[in-house]
């Protein structure tokens, strides 16, 4: 929990690389996209933590806090994003880690994006989005 207090201090981020957790919070192993993104984020100079497959939303939140990340990139292709993404957010809030940014992506219909935004999940990128677009977005939302 030492790292958690780091987050609470708040001013350590300027001097370090963006730390990002990449995860698929559900029963969804379509991992081609996230594995590509992990590589792209690393090549863009970020510190990347990949959760491995099949974590629950609660586990994702715990890893994010333990690893002291600036952002979580969530991806789902199985239609459960409206349930799973806000759950990750909920667990983060419960654990007092409000300032970790959550970025969504996957097969997300247009009309669901608004709902996710309302829950503080930004980006919500669909297939065909360029890696650059996603990386730029992450840089923007992690800038404090």
């Amino acid at each position: 929990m030492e790292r958690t207090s780091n987050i609470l201090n708040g001013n350590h981020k300027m001097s370090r690389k963006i730390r990002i957790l990449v995860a698929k919070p559900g029963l969804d192993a379509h991992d081609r996209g996230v594995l590509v993104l992990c590589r792209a984020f690393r090549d863009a100079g970020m510190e990347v933590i990949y959760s491995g497959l099949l974590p629950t939303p609660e586990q994702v939140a715990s890893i994010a806090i333990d690893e002291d990340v600036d952002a979580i990139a969530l991806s789902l292709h199985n239609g459960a994003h409206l349930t799973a993404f806000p759950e990750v957010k909920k667990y983060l809030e419960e654990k007092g880690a409000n300032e970790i940014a959550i970025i969504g992506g996957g097969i997300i219909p247009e009309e669901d994006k608004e709902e996710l935004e309302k829950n503080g999940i930004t980006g919500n990128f669909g297939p065909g989005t360029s890696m650059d677009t996603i990386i730029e977005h992450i840089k923007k939302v992690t800038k404090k």
Partner: protein
Amino acid sequence: MLETENYWKHKINELAKLKKDSNNEDVKRWEKEVLEPWNEKTNNNEEYSTTSDIDVKTSYSKSDIQTNKDKSMPGEFPFTRGPYPNMYRGKKWTMRMFSGFGTPEDTNNRLKYLIKNGQTGLSIAFDMPTLYGYDADNDRSKGEVGKCGCNISSLKDMEILLKDIPLNQVSTSMTINAPASILTAMYASVASKNNIPLNELRGTVQTDILKEYIAQKEWAYPPKDHMRIVRDMMEYCTKEMPKWNYVSISGYHIREAGSNAAQELAFTLANGFTYLELGQKAGLKTEEFAPRLSFFFNCTMNFFEEIAKFRAARRIWATVLREKYGVEKGPALALRFHTQTSGASLTWQQPMNNIVRTAIEALAGVLGGTQSLHTNSFDEAWALPTEQAVKVALRTQQIIAEETGVIQSADPLGGSYYLEHLTNELEEKAYRYFEKIDSLGGVISAIEKGYLQKEIAETAYQSQLAIEKEKEVVVGVNKYTEEEEDKIEILKVDDEAQKIQVNRLKQLKKDRDNNKVKEALDNLRKAYENNDKNCMYETIKAVQAYATLQEIVDVGRDVFGEWKEPQIF
């Protein structure tokens, strides 16, 4: 029979030698005197290659294939040109549209709709909880019930799913892997209840757990334990359900996960050899069980390479079975396969373009000699398909079959210099991978080391980079893009299915004889614990006692433990 390692080396040398013998004099002259000046004039110095990094020359000639030893005709060893002599004249491919969503009632209706529209085989998709072996009422299933396929939590659901479908007249494909033995037991149990003898059941259950570890990653237990259950299914079905194809060795997911054509070909066939060895080790007679192994390939956009891949697959399978595994003759030598057009090639942008992509891919599958075909719907980058979109996809197959004339001649592209060259090149690449995989200790060991997964992830990353750098064009995505996206109607699966399925489970657990369930699960545990015992019989009893899918898989999770994949990234 040759030692494994030596055998692959021997094949690689054999193929390399054929290449060395080819004589290029005429072509060299043409290149120098005709092509080069023309290239200069047209300012052309581009280099091209296929997805598998096979260089593509400006043109091919007799000299590229004159060392071909394979002079076979369709229906002849090594079946490069097709498993049957008259191919589609004798029997058209089965038009098999994969479908499933929501409750078993929803999927039952969709299946009947497809039969009414001329579909000739059923193919059932299951949702994520079912694929992983969790019941609809489990916490992990929240938000996922019925979303990506039909939910099946017990035999009760299977009874509803198959209601009014004549199981002795249709052939049914079920895309299920980790819990394949349980779903097979359910299917057989529904048939028994309807007095249909098991030996009349025709169909395919995917069961290919190896490609799960490599690509699709829907598993329940560690590889060796899953393989033991596959072994038991092979034994059981060979005896009791002789028309049931119990493993569909799948390259589809390997390709979708990002591999190229050569990797799809090689990893799939390597898995095929592994199942073959599994059956042989279990003491089954190769000529009895090997014909029940069928294949399932992807078909994506690189038109000629895809057709070559199918031809190479047939040639390699027949050759290796004969030379390495001692199968002299019989239907096992002729590789038969199902094809699905590529989901990964579909774009979210300008979705109507996907109709064209699917048509081109389907055509390649047919020219490659597929035995059955699923064509994706244009809206599938967005969601599960609507009925209208599915109909267009099915009609695409019907147009190819009925209007184009491509089915009249078997292997109509056979003899094309380019295609034959690609077939040879892919063949050689596959043998190199077989050698590599063996050097790592075989497929399971290569999975445990993460080698196959990393190979695929690397290729996936490189092809994404190629798209980003616009070295590869995807129409509507990085070229000919539009600001405003086309609007299409998409299928929404709401959470109603979850409620219905959860209530049904509640009722089931009240209605069934819970003592009988406990006894059946205890017996299943004993069967799982004893590696020498065939666990299929106890699986069937547990299913028939209305133990739920998860109750059964949980016994396995307890006995075998869970699988954690090696680090890929």
